[in-house]
């Protein structure tokens, strides 16, 4: 990472940690009227598209013109996908309404944002399971290095009955609360009006020793474990999954405030975006100087390191 990357704005539509009697956490959705003012457009958008577009709108207020739009999602507009699949089965293969098919495309949210603001710039969508958001973030860092400004990067995933039932049946939710969320960030190489700095991003195959990996990463940035005052752990309640977090706790927890972010947003492919949003909030509010975010899933992991300006 050669160019410094600043987080200028961030916006979240996410759950507040209370499942309210449901099996999974759902996002507290805002009143969309002020964010997506065209009523026809608003009505045509499915729930996940509204969540994504609205979160992006919050980052784009005051006529900010991004020079790139990068989105990430694990399952995309899965509700629209299901509706179209269901239509094929119920109506047969004729006279189907194409709108849910169109909206089922993974790049729909990025495209809708571009359409809404006539942004003809770079537009990309990552769909790489638990590393979707980190891939989008890496692309954004490349874009910043390449000299682009105001990179809009976001992550969107939705949870509802069908994916919940399927994930439950697949055995993916043992002791885990599923969740969802839409998070967008505006990144730039200029610190003007920024709230936090993205100091490091690492993704890939999980190392045998997460603590050594993080320690080396911190050293490369001239930091020590004791400098981390906010520790955002990606543990999700599943004993097998949570193993690497214990070694990291020994490294950073003694000197930092520990936040188990999935208790608030739930587990979902792009959940680390919620952690980055929380880190930006805490740093902007002066409640932390350095935040460490660690997540892993299957044999892959990701580390994000944020700092104050």
């Amino acid at each position: 990472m050669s160019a410094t990357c600043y987080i200028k704005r961030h916006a979240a539509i996410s759950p507040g940690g209370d499942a309210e009697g449901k099996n999974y956490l759902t996002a507290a959705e805002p009143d969309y009227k002020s964010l997506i003012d065209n009523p026809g457009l608003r009505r045509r958008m499915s729930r996940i598209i509204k969540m994504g577009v609205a979160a992006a709108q919050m980052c784009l207020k005051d006529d900010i013109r991004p020079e790139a739009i990068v989105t990430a999602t694990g399952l995309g507009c899965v509700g629209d996908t299901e509706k179209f699949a269901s239509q094929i089965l119920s109506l047969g293969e004729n006279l189907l309404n194409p709108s849910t098919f169109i909206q089922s495309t993974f790049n729909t949210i990025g495209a809708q944002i571009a359409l809404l603001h006539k942004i003809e710039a770079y537009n990309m969508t990552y769909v790489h399971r638990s590393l979707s958001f980190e891939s989008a973030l890496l692309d954004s860092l490349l874009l910043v290095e390449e000299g682009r400004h105001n990179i809009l990067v976001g992550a969107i995933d939705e949870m509802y009955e069908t994916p919940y039932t399927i994930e439950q049946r697949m055995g993916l939710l043992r002791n885990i609360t599923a969740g969802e969320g839409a998070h967008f960030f505006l990144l730039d190489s200029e610190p003007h009006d920024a709230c936090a700095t993205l100091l490091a991003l690492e993704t890939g195959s999980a190392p045998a020793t997460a603590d050594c990996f993080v320690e080396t990463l911190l050293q490369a940035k001239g930091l020590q474990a004791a400098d981390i005052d906010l520790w955002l752990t990606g543990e999700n309640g599943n004993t097998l999954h949570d193993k690497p977090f214990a070694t990291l706790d020994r490294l950073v927890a003694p000197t930092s405030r520990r936040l188990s972010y999935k208790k608030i947003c739930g587990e979902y492919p792009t959940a680390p975006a919620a952690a980055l949003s929380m880190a930006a909030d805490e740093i902007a509010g002066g409640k932390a100087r350095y935040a460490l975010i660690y997540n892993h899933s299957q044999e892959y992991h990701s580390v994000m390191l944020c700092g104050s300006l």
Partner: protein
Amino acid sequence: MTIYVTGLGVVSAIGCGVEENLDALRHYRHGLDKVSLFETALDVPVGEVKLDNETLAGMLSLDKGFPYSRTMLLGLLAAREACRDAGITAGMPRTGFISGTSVGGMDRSEIFYESFRNDPEQGDIRLTASHDCADSTLRMARRLGITGFTTTISTACSSAANAILLGARLIRSGRLDTVIVGGTDALCRFTLNGFNSLKILDKELCRPYDNSRAGLNLGEGAGYIVLQNEKALRREPYCCLTGYANTNDAFHQTGSSPEGNGAFRAMSEAVTMAGITPDEVSYVNVHGTGTPLNDLSESRAMLRLFDNHVPPFASVKGYIGHALGGSEGIEAVYSALCVARGILLPNLRFATSIEETALTPVVRYSEGNPIRHVLSNAFGFGGNETSLLFSRP
């Protein structure tokens, strides 16, 4: 920094592997036929890969009983060929894999959903394991022994083009020395019905760039190329990737702007990046789906870019159909071959120029032409427009 293309792998409706594809292209042999992979009431031609899943699994020495997605099987076959071609071995350092797909494992999950929809306790749950787009990529990376940066891109029909673009940028930024890039998509009932509901499928064989064109034929397949920097170079490259650009038409969720603004900017930026002028482009592998709108708007974008002097161009969709997320992977392989062997490809079933733009594509196959730069277009839903420029080293 020069980015070399050192390996090619392809599976399409006209064959498995580079040589089979070239042979079909040379002999004007298209691969469009009736749907045989799944039950459907839709009577439209499609470009299926003529190998069933069991055969594909056998060719790859995989467990024939496991419900791999067809997207993964097609992808692995093409990516393995590209790796072998370039001499990529398992565990090679600073080597990445980036794959594009628009459909993921829908070919499997739509079978599951039929039973699940009636009763959420029913349906073979193993069929859902490959639903997400990352499944095919991760399985392929594991089989190929690629341990470096791996990701999946889904920008509809430009997915593979954007995978190639990202790979080049990762090499340029110094993060990778070698990267296998491209895309894969399998045909399934969901996609066929989706395009049918949009009323853009031709019931006859598609006729890209012809005045009578009436829509596209869907296809399937996969194509991957290996990109390397000079340090990693072990063999004589096919060509270099000298330009690339990703823009957005910002006009309509599914349709292109009539003037092809996004297409114009993608092509123009790719050419500018290479430091050449448009008149130096020798050949354009057009997106050319065969829909009335795409071909007209792409024609207009070319007339503008080339100041009315459009170089030889052709669409290969008349051979293989539109393989969506895999299309630019396949067509990047063809484009690299065009540069390496001086090939001009024929645009099948062309008879009369589009009235508004009067452009005539290449209709005869030829080799040994003096080709320096080949521009290749991939445009998708959501206004995602990407152009790549392949050049002689």
